């Protein structure tokens, strides 16, 4: 059987969040299993199932080449700009 990743939206307005995985023969079956396994206590109102093999993931070890330019750009953050106290809530 194939491995599926399960994502659950716990409440309207929130993003689907990864909850776990399971084995199933096809997507429809995966959806039903996910309902049985992960939402027994009303944990969600919407479920996504995705073939695990379809997920393309970056690796933490790739960090340097993948994310490197981020740390030396403090000017991307609001706190980098010092403003007078009276207007600092901007």
């Amino acid at each position, binding site marked *: 059987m194939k491995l599926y990743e399960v994502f659950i939206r716990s409440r309207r307005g929130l993003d689907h969040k990864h909850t776990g995985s399971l084995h199933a023969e096809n997507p429809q079956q995966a959806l039903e299993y996910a309902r049985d396994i992960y939402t027994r206590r009303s944990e969600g109102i919407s479920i996504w199932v995705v073939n695990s093999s379809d997920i393309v993931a970056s690796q933490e070890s790739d960090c340097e080449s993948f994310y490197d330019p981020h740390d030396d750009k403090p000017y991307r953050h*609001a706190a980098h700009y010092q403003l007078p106290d009276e207007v600092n809530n901007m």
Partner: protein
Amino acid sequence: MSVEVKSEQEVVFQKRIDAEEKIEPKDWMPEKYRQTLIRQMSQHAHSEVIGMQPEGNWLTRAPTLHRKCILLAKVQDEGGHGLYLYSAAETLGISRDELVKALHDGVAKYASIFNYPALTWADIGAIGWLVDGAAIVNQISLQRTSYGPYARSMVRICKEESFHQRQGYQIMMTLTQGSHEQKAMAQDALDRFWWPSLMMFGPHDAESAHSAQSMKWKIKRQSNDELRQKFIDQSVKQADVIGLKIPDPALKWNTDRGHYDIGEIDWSEFARVIKGDGPCNRQRLQHHNRIHAEGAWVRDAVAAYEAKHKQRSTKAA
């Protein structure tokens, strides 16, 4: 029969909205709700992308390397915000190609403020402080909009926008602490951008064509005039702190209302710019069209690369 079923769905839909629940992509929704969202979200996305032009104009001329890095980061953010919003709009069943085509055909609009040129470095300050400032007031309110994907992109965007307004204000502040000419340049930018910034909130409530239904559907959460007032009240103080003067002789604190009163907005200018006769309307669209056409080879190359890869992997198998 289908009419009855529909109205029942509509009742459920409105109840959900009245209960402050979000509408999500696979829910039933009235066609008009979907169309209104597509119009508003695509207009919002186009504004982010067209808004890159007046600022992009100053990338090579920013006064220091540091200012250039900041401006690059900001313009990059605007492109990213456009992408968040296009993707959110696509959950309503419209394609990116259709959205871009509507912009090029002049069917879809973008914020009229971007039809004004950025003539001086101080304009980059004014744009960050006032134009982004006005956008933030609007976007904070839209974090509570009824369509889930739109609300979530607003949360993400608001988080990133704060730096935009602060860097703009800091440019203005620095200029006001400089020479006589620099201070005059900052005042001139405020003079030119003040009124168009107030127009960003749209017509007065009484004149606003789409407002009533959008408020009922909670696509809009606060009226044009309420949001505009919030922006005016905060900006007056911010101008005062750096010694700049709001270009409105009628501006006056109203103790009864607890807000500032302002003079009359020139709505004929607003109508003219929206209709296409602002200082840069033609240039903005021509530029977008040209860049889109010139970028076709990149899209083709990506597709060709993918096709070649597929061919290779089937051969190998």
